[in-house]
């Protein structure tokens, strides 16, 4: 257990991202590091219910904080350029769809609902861009050194195989909240930090076990 704890602690503190988070807000840095450790503990066979509850309490607190300070107002804001695009598209839809577009429900769907969904899915996609986490060419944006990528993939595959419910639910909730916040801000996808640490640590643990078996 001690060895496992050291692995997750090493992963949580051995990256560039955690120092960016600490620099931005010490309390957030501490909470996210603790969350990483707790989430890792829930993925171990000797997990307890209390730890699982603690993970989701911290996640709720972090989510509320993040939404309060970094909610992406652009989701509902339509820029001048977007207005022009929307106007043109309205004409195309009108010409091709006729009454399907030219009624209240159609106009609401195409002019209001679709653009909002498109922006949220854009944010959602951006959070899934692993290149941003491991292969960033800008050192200030770099989050993890590239050599951790194979460990991350290994850990992710492990999670997919064993289907660890708490980790999957954590990932989905963190992803949903992150889709609603400004991705360009430094706090951006911070809720995913514990999940990334978890995958890397699981990958490292896997390799450690294999290595121990071999010797």
């Amino acid at each position, binding site marked *: 257990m001690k060895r496992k704890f050291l692995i997750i602690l090493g992963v949580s503190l051995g990256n560039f991202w955690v120092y960016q988070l600490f620099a931005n807000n010490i309390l957030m840095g501490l909470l996210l590091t603790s969350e990483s450790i707790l989430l890792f503990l829930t993925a171990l066979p000797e997990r307890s219910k209390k730890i699982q509850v603690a993970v989701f309490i911290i996640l709720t607190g972090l989510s509320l904080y993040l939404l309060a300070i970094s909610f992406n107002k652009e989701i509902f804001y339509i820029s001048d350029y977007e207005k022009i695009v929307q106007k043109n598209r309205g004409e*195309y*839809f009108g010409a091709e769809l006729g009454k399907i577009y030219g009624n209240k429900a159609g106009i609401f769907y195409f002019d209001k609902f679709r653009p909002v969904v498109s922006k949220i*899915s*854009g944010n959602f*996609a951006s959070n*899934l861009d*692993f290149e941003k986490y491991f*292969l960033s060419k800008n050192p200030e944006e770099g989050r993890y050194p590239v050599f951790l990528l194979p460990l991350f993939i290994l850990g992710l595959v492990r999670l*997919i195989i064993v*289907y660890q419910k708490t980790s999957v639910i954590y990932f989905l909730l963190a992803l949903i909240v992150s889709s609603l916040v400004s991705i360009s801000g430094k706090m951006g996808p911070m809720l995913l930090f514990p999940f990334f640490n978890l995958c890397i640590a699981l990958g490292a643990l896997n390799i450690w076990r294999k290595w121990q078996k071999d010797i």
Partner: protein
Amino acid sequence: MEKMAKRHLVILLLVLFVAAFLRFYNLGSIPAGLHGDAASQGYNAFSLLNSSKDRFGEPFPVLFRSLGSYQPPIYTYLTTIPVSIFGNTPMAARFISAFSGILLSLITFLFFRAFFPSKPGLALFGGALVAIAPWSVFFSRLAVEANLALVIFASSILLYWRSLKNPSLFITACLLLGLSTHAYYSERLLAVLFLPLYLLIFRKFWLHQKRWAILGLVIFILTQVPHFSMVTSGAYIRRFDQVSGSGMDNYLVYYSLPNLFFDSDSNLGRTMPGLSVFYGWMVVPLIFGIRELVLGKVTKEAGKILGLLLILTPIPAALTGDLFYPLRVLDFLWVLTLIIAIGLYSIYAYLKVNTAKIGLVVILALYSIFSLYISYFILFKYEKAENYGYAYVKLAEKLKGYKDKEVIIDSARDLGIGVRMAYLTRFDPRNIQEQLRPQMKTSYYNSSVNSDEVYILGNITVKPIRWGEVCRENVLFVGDQAALSDKEIKEHKLKFEFEIKDLSGKTALLGYKTQPEEKCK
């Protein structure tokens, strides 16, 4: 192979009908226009039909010299069939690609039936996913050789699998794999990577079937003879010279989830407005599909072939300088579609209630086709018309009323205008051959290929505008707003004749006639 149940046959026919509908519905008018590369293939096919030579007067080329590069030959040779049936239309130029898209759906079905004979439902899922996948519909409706190459490549993979039970099929598999290298550039590299690795993986089997293995390899090498004859000319690597430039980043971008499922882009090599290469929802079955593969729920051999393809297929595109260029990785996108199908089928099988199963299939199918209709058949049609030369199709019609004038169409910013106009006006290929052959600055097969040919199509000349010609009587200049700017119009005292707008309403082409009596008095 087991006899198919009647119910499955009906569903398969429905899947193929959907595939055909999504590929052939308004194929002549969406994409609106005709891309230069498509026109080149169409006109070369027209030229072959009429003279057994391409537009440069080369008899039965091994590679088709075109617009500063070379086009692989099979697509053009096959296009002689639709051009002879439907004439010189945009639809005829795209026909082979669209037909390939339907065939791919069928081959995917057969592929799964061969891989997983106990799961006929999975085969239907595979065929259906290819039928509606945005990447497949998008590229099937463009005259791209890559789509034809994919069908040939996929057929060869199916036969490589079947050859593990019936080794004589190895010969046909090698023949098809060899042919695929004449259909598109990616397959040239992919084939030589795949074949030795396949033999290595299944070496135990093939060491006992040496006779068939050697025969197959000989057949494959024979199919490469035309390439060998090109190697010293420089034509073989001309395209690679144009696009080369690689890095690990270029390889990894093909595994990026945003690139595959969420980002949409406007370039020809990518996708349609508002939709990515795959539908966003497909990310979930992909994860389940990977899980099935990793857990070994698909057979070990099938897993090995899929895994090998998953690693190999992005390599040719990764060696080019472009970041994420779906056109060059259609084989990879097909492999991902197979994994998505496996994942979706596992979710489907997990559901216990029939209503939930049917509901899942119906909702996903309707949502996908609706998204595709909005993104492709409406937004792409209007917003990307300028990328496909819609205005030149209109111009070809308009110029029928200007037979008494000398028309000069500016070609400074679009290399494909000359061949596009020649194709659309069915201009005599022998006449074009006499014009173009002397304009080649190097031999037909060469590492250096000029693309500045002037086309004279009766009263129409396609070349960059030279303002020295404004003092000639009865000349009509046609060009975009950059060629015929307000400044040039004023300075050369040109008189407005017509304007051609894109589908989006933007001015695409302008026609102005000379007034030598005003300008040159």
